[in-house]
């Protein structure tokens, strides 16, 4: 389903070369819930950009849902992100002063989904994340947790191959963070594939599998069968 083989990413400035990812290979199967962990500078953001088709690797092959991402043009990448990836960002990244339902409809608008269907689908996903009575509130009228739920609904809108969450609870109060993680678990139970980048062990323990990066390399890739805290 998702396959990374020998992915290397090198950032070059005039004077220095930085190896952000160094020969990273792994696979994620359909229905998995993976947390990618690591300290800052470990390359997890770079990995998230590559997984999200926001950036291309320097070398190696990335296959998503049987499509090779590594050699696509800018517009093809945009199309790929639109159809296959549901983004959930740390800072929510909703359009300001725009209603929740309109935010959820944006990816469908870019995909050319007919307007009537957009509304139906947006309502369905907003209901799913528990925002039935907040659909016509603008993004600045709702709390951080609610904004992130709008973002999850938006991520689901195109029924993507994976949900890619980058520190999804980073900007949210702890009690609301638990709710968000519960939504993730629920979605995973329904069969959605989720990849989540985080540096918080408390959050990572909700995932079924935890990959730990350090200095651009995978140092640990374990099943989290009991979903317990890894360390304290």
């Amino acid at each position, binding site marked *: 389903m998702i396959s990374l083989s020998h992915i290397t990413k090198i950032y070059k400035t005039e004077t220095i070369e930085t190896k952000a990812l160094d020969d990273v290979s792994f696979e994620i199967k359909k229905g998995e819930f993976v947390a990618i962990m690591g300290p800052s500078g470990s390359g997890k953001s770079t990995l998230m*950009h590559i997984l*999200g088709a*926001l*950036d291309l690797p320097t070398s190696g092959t990335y296959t998503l849902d049987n499509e090779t991402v590594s050699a696509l043009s*800018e*517009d093809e990448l*945009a*199309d790929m*992100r*639109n*159809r296959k990836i549901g*983004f959930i*960002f740390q800072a929510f*990244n909703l*359009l*300001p*002063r725009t209603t929740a339902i309109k935010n959820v409809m*944006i*990816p469908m*608008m*870019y*995909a*050319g989904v007919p307007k009537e269907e957009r509304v139906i689908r947006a309502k369905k996903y907003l209901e799913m994340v528990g925002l039935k009575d907040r659909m016509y509130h603008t993004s600045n009228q709702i709390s951080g947790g609610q904004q992130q739920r709008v973002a999850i609904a*938006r991520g689901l809108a*195109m029924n993507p191959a994976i949900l890619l969450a980058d520190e999804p609870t980073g900007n949210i109060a702890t009690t609301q963070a638990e709710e968000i993680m519960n939504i993730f678990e629920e979605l995973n139970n329904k069969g959605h594939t989720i990849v989540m980048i985080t540096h918080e062990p408390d959050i990572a323990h909700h995932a079924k599998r935890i990959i730990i990066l350090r200095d651009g390399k995978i140092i640990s890739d374990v099943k989290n069968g009991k979903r317990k805290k890894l360390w304290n």
Partner: protein
Amino acid sequence: MELREIVTEALGTLTINKLRTGLAVLGIIIGIGSVIALISLGQSSQKSIENQIQSLGSNILTVSPAGQNTGAVRGAGGGGTTLTPEDASALKSATTLTTIARISPEYARRSQVTAGRNNTNTQIIGVESQYADIRKLTVATGAFITDRDVSVLSKVAVLGPQAASDLFGDGTELLGQSIRINGQILTVIGVTSSKGGSGFNNPDDAIYVPLSTAQKILFGVNNLTSIAVEAKDSGVMTETQNEIGYFLLARHKISDPANADFTIFSQNDILNTVSQVTGTFTTLLGGIAAISLLVGGIGIMNIMLVTVTERTREIGLRKALGAKKRLIITQFLTEAILLTIIGGIVGMALGIIISYILTRVMNMPFTISPFSVILALGVSGGIGILFGWYPAKKAADLLPIEALRYE
């Protein structure tokens, strides 16, 4: 995405920051408004001048003596003494000239005129009785110069209203008053109605005397400064011009028309010259206004660039969610074009209103050419594309990662 959706989105974005949108549009409003108003005013004044000239008679030809040729240098027109009363009577009596209705020989010269303690410097015009009809002059009080006045060299004068008020002030009984020109005393027998002219040949600021009196008594000359010829109708002006031309060439025994010692011009010739001048003037005004339009366009570009910087994160997000390059360009370009089109429409309305009010105040005919309206709208749309393109391209070229990270 459909065009209607893109336009709705763009309108939504523009209404978020109303003050900024308003200021950006203001530049275009002023630019388009001034272009429309100034072109319209230029055309109105052109029309007004044309009407004035037309009112002097469209079937009138004026024959005047040419300047003297001195080697290669040709003197100023009107200075010569080659046109005589005999030329005028020959024109009158010639049976070969079939298209001429009436002829008015004239002798005009500026001179000092006194009346009591007042004096003025004005145009003294020696005329015959037909002058009033040909030059479309009417008498308000008293009578005009008659044929008898001319034949007996009467010392009488008809005043233009401007000259009358210069000499006697307002409200004085003018008929029977005396004026003094070159030491000769003349009696006022009439005052003409105002024609509302201006400049050198203002029929209101003139004194009309019998031609013979002007030549023999006042100034002691025997030549004419012009002969006004009225054609039978305005359709035969060219023929009339040719007939008179060849007739006078033969009379003056000149074989080469290039050496003619007189010139003939029609009101149309004057009209064309004036039209050319005012046309240039209108273009000049429009050009100056176009500069303000350009400044307005740069204002739009400035605002759009600020917008792109401000909305970097939004652009990054849109790209992450699948917006293609072309869509981002279209989105920003649409915003810029909407700004300029709105500005163009408001500016056009404003320009028309300003021009309407000013032409009313200045008592000119109000004209607005559809050409300038179409031009204004086209130009404002074009400015949107021209100055919106660079910011739009800049937005579309942002890398999604960089844009998302942007604080």
